[in-house]
């Protein structure tokens, strides 16, 4: 009887270590896959970009002066203090990693008034697909007035690619 119990104990301890190894292997796998994967901050970047652009176009609910002028459209990057230069890795220098598109609409008639496009327009294709490997697209719209109380709807589309540093 005692012998039987001893055998049973041994078997239990072998099983115990087997379970322990399986649990440990699962933990190691999870830790490696979690910490091995880069932090994906592209969505936060796209939000920050949209906020920056919105803040550049409108202040306290009113459209800033000259935003609809040709000069502003041409010098959009300087006017909004944006710099789309990126680090020289993964061939990023040759393919811009950002894209911003702004569309101005007359709020009452829904007619397009003007638009501004800056960055890599080719990234637009990624917005049709879903998945981590594609660029992050964020579209937001807001309502604003000018000094003459004309109403506008402004749509801002921000796209951030930077796939190689955010997705494995």
């Amino acid at each position, binding site marked *: 009887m005692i012998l039987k119990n001893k055998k049973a104990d041994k078997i239990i301890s072998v099983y115990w270590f087997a379970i322990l190894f399986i649990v440990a292997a699962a*933990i190691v796998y999870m830790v490696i896959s979690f910490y091995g994967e880069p932090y994906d901050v592209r969505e936060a970047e796209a939000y*920050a970009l949209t906020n*920056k652009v919105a803040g550049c176009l409108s202040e306290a609910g009113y459209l800033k002066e000259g935003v609809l002028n040709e000069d502003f459209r041409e010098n959009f990057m300087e006017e909004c*203090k944006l*710099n789309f*230069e990126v*680090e020289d890795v993964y061939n990023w220098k040759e393919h811009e990693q950002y894209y911003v598109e702004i569309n101005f609409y007359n709020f009452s008639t829904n007619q397009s008034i003007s638009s501004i496009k800056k960055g890599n327009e080719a990234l637009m294709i990624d917005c049709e697909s879903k998945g981590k490997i594609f660029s992050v697209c964020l579209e937001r719209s807001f309502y604003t007035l000018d000094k003459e109380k004309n109403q506008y709807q402004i749509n801002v589309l921000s796209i951030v690619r930077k796939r190689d540093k955010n997705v494995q």
Partner: protein
Amino acid sequence: MRRMIHKKGNILTGNIIFIILNLVFLSILIIFLFSKMGSAIVLEEKYAKQIALILDSAEPGMIIHLNMKDAIKIANKEDRDLNNVISVQDNIVKVQLGEKGGYSYSFFNDIKSFIHLNTSSFEEYIIVMGDYN
């Protein structure tokens, strides 16, 4: 009687070995976990991206305090000059905790920034935002 004492001793030794092995096993697992969590590579990436996001949303005149106690601890271990842990060139921020490697990430806000170590605590960096470029 003698036999019983011998038997009891056997059971105790077996149990102790079993417990010690379990503890060793779990300790190795915990050490592995902590080494992964606080490794220089992970922290460099974490702080480079965090600083880039801070700079993206920053405006002139802002002063930002960033606690980097864990990263500073590693930099000290690696004998790294704490004034060179974070560097910003053009619109790319780089965090380097050792003599080699480092992680860089770009930000789109065209703004000047000055980053220095808080010498009163040696646990945080102070980011002072300058004017737009």
